[in-house]
């Protein structure tokens, strides 16, 4: 409680202008969107059914993608943070590949793995009749591919910060490793998991390159908001700005509510 004022008083003055500059740098483009937005035609743009479809699809896919990221990413983060094996640092570097890969290349890479003729996709098709490209599931796959590193890095960092003696304490109290992981480690790193999930959700929501390459673009099944914005840009840049603002408002709104929920009870 008494820590807050103390901390702000200790802020070095030299950081303030730089922080202000960073804030301006981040917010000016958003301000540009707001200023240039065609406010008069906004109701018309928003009432278009394809926009509602795209928005709904975007929120659904980004949420599913972040669920996939959490379910698969947390164990991977645990492996990277805790297991000791040869090539771990190489593996850690490889995990960040989707971050440096241009998203379109990521989409092509997904084809080679999970496409109709891909290494794994071929068998998915033959054995289960599952084809991922050009489906909503494909959108989730593409978004999760691009967003997973955010979760893994965030959770791995949190896991490294955990005092491992908590796990020792749990073991001496009779808890198995699995019980300890669920009831001790995971709750302690929960803020890191939430932060990572939010980051990956935001990344998935804005994902364009890998999605349009791997999942394509079809209204109602694979056309997410970023694709909608991109196509609108071809035809009517003003409408593209309107759509971007919609995506922006919705995502900022969701993040603000999440923050309230999660951090409101914590601080």
């Amino acid at each position: 409680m008494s820590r807050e004022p103390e901390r702000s008083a200790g802020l070095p003055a030299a950081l303030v202008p730089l922080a202000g500059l960073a804030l301006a740098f981040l917010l000016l483009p958003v301000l540009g969107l707001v200023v240039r937005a065609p406010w008069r035609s906004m109701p018309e743009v928003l009432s278009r059914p394809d926009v509602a479809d795209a928005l709904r699809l975007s929120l659904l896919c980004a949420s599913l993608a972040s669920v996939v990221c959490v379910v698969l990413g947390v164990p991977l983060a645990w492996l990277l943070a805790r297991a000791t094996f040869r090539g771990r640092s190489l593996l850690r570097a490889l995990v960040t590949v989707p971050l440096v890969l241009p998203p379109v290349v990521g989409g092509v890479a997904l084809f080679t793995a999970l496409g109709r003729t891909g290494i794994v996709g071929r068998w998915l098709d033959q054995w289960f009749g599952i084809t991922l490209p050009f489906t909503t599931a494909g959108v989730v796959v593409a978004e999760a591919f691009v967003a997973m590193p955010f979760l893994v890095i965030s959770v791995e960092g949190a896991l490294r910060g955990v005092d491992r003696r908590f796990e020792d304490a749990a073991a001496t109290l009779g808890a198995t490793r699995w019980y300890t992981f669920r009831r001790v480690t995971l709750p302690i790193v929960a803020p890191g998991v939430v932060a990572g999930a939010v980051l990956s959700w935001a990344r998935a929501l804005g994902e364009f390159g890998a999605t349009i390459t791997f999942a394509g673009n079809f209204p109602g099944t694979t056309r997410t908001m970023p694709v909608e914005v991109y196509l609108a840009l071809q035809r009517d840049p003003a409408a593209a700005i309107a759509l971007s603002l919609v995506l922006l408002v919705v995502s900022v709104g969701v993040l603000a509510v999440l923050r309230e929920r999660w951090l409101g009870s914590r601080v």
Partner: protein
Amino acid sequence: MSEDAAPNGASLEADLYVRRGSFALTMRFGVAAGEVVAILGPNGAGKSTALRALAGLLPLHRGHVRLDGAVLDDAAAGVRLPPERRPVGLVFQDYLLFPHLSARENVAFGLRARGVGRAAAGARADVALAGVGLADVGDRKPRQLSGGEAQRVALARVLVTEPRLVLLDEPLAALDAGSRLQVRADLRRQLAGFGGATVLVTHDALDAFVLADRLVVLEEGAVVQAGTPTEVARRPRTDYVARLVGLNLYRGVAHGTSVTLDTGAVVASAHHATGRVLVAFPPAAVTVHREQPHGSARNAWPVTVVRQEQHADTVRVWLTGPLDVAADLTPLSVGELRLEPGAEVWAAVKAMETMVYPS
């Protein structure tokens, strides 16, 4: 005396050999059911290593651990029961209460991990909390507890699982001086009610003397002395123990009632002995004089005052001469003798006050 400090019919029987880098711990000892043994030693002596090995958190390189006849560790046979399957509870130095759980949930943790239902575990946790005098803190998070309360919650968390062996790592080190006294007294009472074996690790002699039935003194990974607090205090075998218990300790060779110390000084004693011995006497037995004393004190040495420390109602004066001596005097006599660093005086000890025992 051998390093084997195991009494007959011990509940815990430990023969530990643990290597960690260049450090090696070698330790054999036992603890009877209901008995409290303190492992006393300076920092880095291997005390915590011993506890972690007993808890199963560190593997033994050699040796074994048996508890109530059941094998927990047997390095030769390749047996190593994992920590969660040992009936052993460990209270960590900084307690390590799980920060996301309330005090009640912390105490219930071990029961829940063993499959006890939420309600039943919560009820037993409440009983355990009441048992350590904390019936009303169940809903608090660890960060809302005082140091003493956290210590008791940690103890309740271990005791509720009904272990056969309780390990306490520096149970009072994290507390401020004010709460130490009370917590130490509480801890003593709670351990007295516990039927299993208890091993506590401390570097604080007072904790060890108050809480333990027997002491095992560990230095540089090896047992240097073991026995009841009284035995250890009376007859320290190393400078560390002597300093700890506040005794003047010397090594020398005895001829009858006279001991020639390794430094050359001669100490007269009331007991006959021969061969290499240790000589000890308490600082309170030392008297200080301006002139060479005459009378019943057979031991008198010309010494120089090095420094002095004010204690509660005595002043400890450090003297050097043919031998180094600590003396406890009243403030009045310090004033009368006009003692100050550099002052040249005589130190005397009655032969009756000295203890001589084989080294």
